[in-house]
């Protein structure tokens, strides 16, 4: 098992490097000009100097190498400095955002909590709602509840966040007036009152994001339960007189959770993708909003770094899913 994990980790490295290269080349070969925003009155030689200062004059492979060193060597150094108060990274050049004139990772650290709060809560809520729905739908297959569940899942798939967002704003914010639909990112949680305000402003984005999660996970849960419900061991469990709850929630559920857990792990990056749109709808100042801003502002280092971070997330989620599958299912043996 350990050998398998190490092998997978080793395989993830070239994958990530390749993705980094692909994104870099895509940005580099594109016809967009990062100097397009500079006023026309600036003389060409000054423009050339600015280009030089941004490091645009160097050949592509040098700049990609520089980015690699900055991202994989200097940024971790900065991180350790920050943790232990050391000075390893002093005087070293970090990945700079052209838009903010500050290190990209600082911006990321600044924006990440907003996204994590919303996305994390939404995912947990979505999964917690999805599991019981899936279990009960499978147990009472073709019942009214199951049919309704199927329909709701289909609707969940069919209503993208950029439609459910405005709908929920309309109902809960404009009609009922319960929540404010502009997310206040400067809000600090200090006591119970401010925590309630934070919860209040998180309700709507969490609803939007968890609708997607619930739709997906409850489908998988139902299918997995159905696969197991008609197995011989279930009949055995019933035959030896176990209660229906014990059969369902101990025997069937435990075996059904194996594929569902991997799906939960695999779905995590998709929620971050969904957060890009949801953050736009509710004006949340998170990592997705930063990505959109950076793309609009032609801020190539930020776009590259953020896209790469999304890729890291996906690769890690895949890895996690595979490892969990191996840990949970003793039938899987890794040679």
């Amino acid at each position, binding site marked *: 098992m350990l050998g398998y994990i190490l092998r997978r980790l080793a395989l993830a490295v070239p*994958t990530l490097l390749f993705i980094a290269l692909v994104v870099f080349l*895509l940005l580099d070969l*594109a016809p967009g000009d990062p100097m397009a925003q500079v006023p026309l009155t600036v003389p060409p030689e000054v423009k050339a100097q600015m280009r030089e200062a941004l490091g645009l004059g160097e050949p592509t492979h040098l700049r990609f190498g520089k980015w690699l060193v900055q991202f994989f060597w200097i940024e971790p150094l900065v991180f350790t400095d920050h943790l232990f108060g050391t000075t390893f990274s002093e005087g070293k050049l970090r990945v700079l955002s052209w838009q903010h004139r500050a290190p990209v990772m600082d911006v990321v650290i600044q924006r990440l909590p907003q996204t994590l709060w919303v996305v994390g809560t939404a995912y947990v809520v979505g999964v917690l709602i999805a599991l019981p729905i899936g279990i009960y739908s499978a147990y009472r297959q073709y019942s009214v509840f199951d049919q309704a569940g199927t329909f709701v899942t289909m*609707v969940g*798939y*069919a*209503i*993208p966040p950029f439609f459910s967002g405005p709908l929920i704003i309309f109902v809960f914010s404009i009609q009922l007036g319960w929540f404010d639909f502009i997310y206040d990112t400067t809000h600090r949680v200090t006591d119970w009152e401010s925590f309630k305000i934070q919860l209040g402003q998180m309700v709507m984005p969490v609803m939007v994001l968890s609708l997607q999660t619930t739709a997906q996970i409850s489908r998988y849960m139902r299918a997995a339960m159905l696969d197991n419900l008609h197995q011989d061991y279930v009949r055995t469990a019933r035959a030896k007189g176990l209660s229906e709850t014990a059969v369902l929630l101990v025997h069937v559920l435990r075996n059904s959770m194996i594929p569902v857990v991997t799906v939960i792990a695999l779905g995590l990056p998709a929620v971050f993708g969904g957060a890009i749109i949801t953050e736009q709808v509710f004006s949340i100042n998170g990592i997705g909003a930063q990505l959109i801003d950076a*793309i609009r502002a032609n801020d190539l280092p930020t776009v590259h770094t953020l896209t790469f971070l999304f*890729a890291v997330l996906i690769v890690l989620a895949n890895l996690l899913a595979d490892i969990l599958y191996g840990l949970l299912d003793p039938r899987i043996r890794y040679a």
Partner: protein
Amino acid sequence: MPEPRPPSAVPALSRWRSVWKAFARHRGALLGGITFLFILLAVFIGPLVWTLDPGFADLRARNQGASWAHPFGTDNLGRDTLARVMAGGQISISVGLAAMALSIGLGTLIGVLAGMFGWLDGPLMRLTDLFLSLPLLPLLLVMMLLFNESLSALMGPETGTFVLIVSAIGLTSWMPTARIVRGDVLALKEREFVLAARSMGASPARLITRHILPNVLSPILVSATLGIATAIITESALSFLGFGFPPDFATWGQLLKDATIYLQDYPERVIWPGLAISLTVLSVNYMGDGLRDALDPRARR
């Protein structure tokens, strides 16, 4: 010994007839099919009946609610919403169909190649894995931003953006199809009829077109149906974020984006484009579901 039974007097239904019968018996699928057909008709034939120009700004009739003159109301420039939803649907559905065709074509090609030729299997599947771990939405946004201007300059704003969106979505969504097709081809390759065809000297090309492809048609059809829905949602998401067609082309996502700005004053404007997207996706998904059941002879009762 009992006599072998004579061929039954009732001719066996042809494959497609029986598939159609199973499809029609699936209530959701039939309803989905009818709805999708209705949306197609409304969007492509509708403008011939409802002849208002979607781009015409009637400044005296701005921000109107539903009326006989404008059943869906008008927007902040006095443009008729019904006409705009129909015009937007033409773009959104065309993008969905074209992107689906590209993605299915690519997926089938790669899946068949990987399944048929062992030496291609490894590299092609690694490529598929790699594409699956790309962050798709950020990449799509980047592609739209970087290439939209130059392609629009080359082919005009509408064709340029259309080609870009279709190829961007197609290039980033072929992986599931490729995996499914590869798996089926691998299983088919070992079957007796393929072996028989091969032993009679059929060339690989003939094997693929005559024996393999007709047998992997059903999973391809199902993922094609579901692919339309995904492509429409992706296109709308891009337009919603402002990275799709230029603002004067009213795709459904663009209409939604415009409507959310006026959400507080005119909330009803969000409904029509949103409903159009959701209904299309819902009907297509139900169709795909029914098709999957209908095409799988084991699931047919």
